[in-house]
């Protein structure tokens, strides 16, 4: 085993990861806030007005990064699922349970902002746009994962079943996306996009990237925070957790 993999496997133990996560998450959260403020300010005030959609288009600075994040988090979950099913590590399952609610939240945010955007553009709260429909299905995949892991009492079985589900879902996501796009173009549905000639203004892209970075760091911070609670719950029969939970000053 190389020294590098030794380090990786050391942090695969819940106790070590607990400490690492505790030290990291405040910094990540702070960075997320910085980028978020910067991104929002750029998007709201600095980026130019779209010549077709006016001010309303600015919602894409939340909508697009949220969509990206909902997909990236699902990929991350699939990655941890593969790790967990191959190496049988406890941490992978906990990581997925920590990530899933945030992924679902971003999917919901994407749908909601998509609707808010669609209304001034098309006059309807929901148009069966290919990307929005795929996002809706992704949202259901998240809910399915959360439902399954919540219904199984035994933690090891819950982790493994959730991991398998995440993997099956991940393999199907491209197929689902492709079929929804086919369905949409076949029926000439509406499309929610920003048209700015052939390219987007530099500042718009910049604002979206900043927001995406901010959302990504937020997801990491909150996953680290959440996983600490999960670790305490799962390992509550061990000595180190009992020591951790004992109130300060008690012997």
């Amino acid at each position: 085993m190389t020294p590098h993999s030794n380090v990786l496997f050391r942090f695969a133990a819940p106790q070590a990861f607990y400490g690492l996560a505790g030290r990291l998450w405040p910094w990540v959260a702070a960075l997320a806030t910085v980028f978020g403020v910067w991104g929002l300010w750029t998007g709201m005030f600095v980026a130019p007005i779209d010549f077709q959609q006016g001010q309303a288009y600015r919602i894409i600075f939340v909508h697009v990064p949220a969509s990206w994040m909902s997909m990236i988090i699902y990929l991350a979950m699939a990655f941890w699922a593969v790790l967990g099913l191959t190496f049988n590590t406890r941490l992978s399952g906990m990581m997925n349970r920590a990530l899933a609610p945030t992924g679902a939240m971003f999917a919901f945010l994407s749908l909601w902002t998509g609707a808010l955007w669609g209304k001034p553009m098309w006059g309807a709260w929901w148009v069966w746009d290919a990307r929005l429909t795929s996002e809706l299905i992704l949202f259901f995949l998240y809910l399915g994962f959360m439902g399954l892991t919540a219904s199984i009492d035994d933690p090891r079985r819950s982790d493994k079943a959730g991991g398998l589900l995440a993997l099956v879902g991940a393999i199907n996501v491209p197929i689902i996306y492709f079929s929804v796009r086919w369905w949409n173009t076949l029926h000439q549905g509406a499309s929610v996009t920003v048209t700015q000639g052939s390219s987007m203004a530099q500042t718009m892209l910049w604002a979206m990237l900043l927001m995406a970075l901010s959302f990504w760091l937020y997801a990491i911070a909150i996953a680290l925070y959440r996983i600490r609670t999960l670790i305490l719950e799962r390992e509550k029969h061990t000595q180190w957790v009992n020591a951790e939970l004992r109130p300060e000053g008690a012997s």
Partner: protein
Amino acid sequence: MLSVNDLSCHRGERRLFSGVGFQLKAGTCLYLEGDNGVGKTSLLRQVSGLLPVSVGQISWCGKPIADNEFFRKQLIYLGHNLAMKDDLSAMENLQIDAAIAGQAVDPDKVLSALKSLGLKGREHLPIRVLSQGQKRRAALARLLTRQASLWILDEPVVALDVPAQAAVGRVLKAHLEKGGMVLFTSHQPLPMAIPSASITSYRLQG
């Protein structure tokens, strides 16, 4: 030929047992005893391969039992439930059981197996109309209709009356004499037919 080494078992967050080790050679029988809830069923399920093992080794003829098709060919596991379909008869159940295990079985052999366990005349009735004891005897008949050297039995004689227990004892004895192995648990007294020289006890502590 079956070797268990330093085995431990966790269910959820509880640790049931640890450091369990024993060997089972041809012609011997291991009686697993212990209080309720100590983990006897979990141990039997780990040895048969249904429950995964994270600490310890279980091997058959020197090779680990995980993904070991050769091991599964040699194994019959009978747990608390009967592993029979209610709507099918004992005859049909046993034939399908053998087929799923990849073994061919002669209908006459099935009939004689059921007869030796006292089920003559009931071979073609759906399982659901049989009594508890009759159902269990039908389930045990698969020990005679299938070829396997290792029998793992979780409370095989529960709900059986004394004559039926004796019949099961004779079946186990014949199996041991042919060089087979038995690993079982039971709350009832052991079937007397088995010579005490071939039985070892292992007490499972929490």
